[in-house]
């Protein structure tokens, strides 16, 4: 269900530390309205969908939410 690639989807170079911004990004990552929740919702909703095509889309979009937005 979950596998990890040791690389980012897009290159990012952190040049200086910014704890205040880091805190906001962490919340966007796993907080109450974060990407982790969105990914989990897609991946949960796909179980109740009667169309294979939509199941596939929700699986892949949920995966990419975890990949693109959560990748770290």
């Amino acid at each position, binding site marked *: 269900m979950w596998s990890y690639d*040791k690389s980012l989807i897009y290159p990012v170079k952190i040049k200086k530390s910014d704890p205040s911004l880091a805190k906001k990004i962490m919340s966007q990552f796993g907080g109450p309205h974060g990407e982790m929740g969105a990914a989990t919702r897609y991946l949960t909703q796909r179980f109740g969908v009667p169309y294979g095509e939509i199941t596939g889309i929700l699986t892949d979009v949920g995966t990419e939410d975890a990949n693109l937005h959560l990748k770290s």
Partner: protein
Amino acid sequence: MTEKEEMLFNVQKYRFALIDIAMYLDSHKNDKEAMETFKKYGKDYLEAKKAYVDKFGPLMHSDLIGESKWTWTDAPWPWEV
């Protein structure tokens, strides 16, 4: 850009293309042109990944299947680069 960054960027580039085309194909499964594009970038991805892994170490666990030493936990992690 260092050689390492450039080779990793190639992997990232082709992987991103694959992901994007895959999501398009989910709702356009009979699009032959998209399928061909998927295959083309798929080959490019595998080549770029092999080149990077041979030189700089694993990007995923399965890259270590042929190895004798577990280097997965060696630095750097993606956020440390």
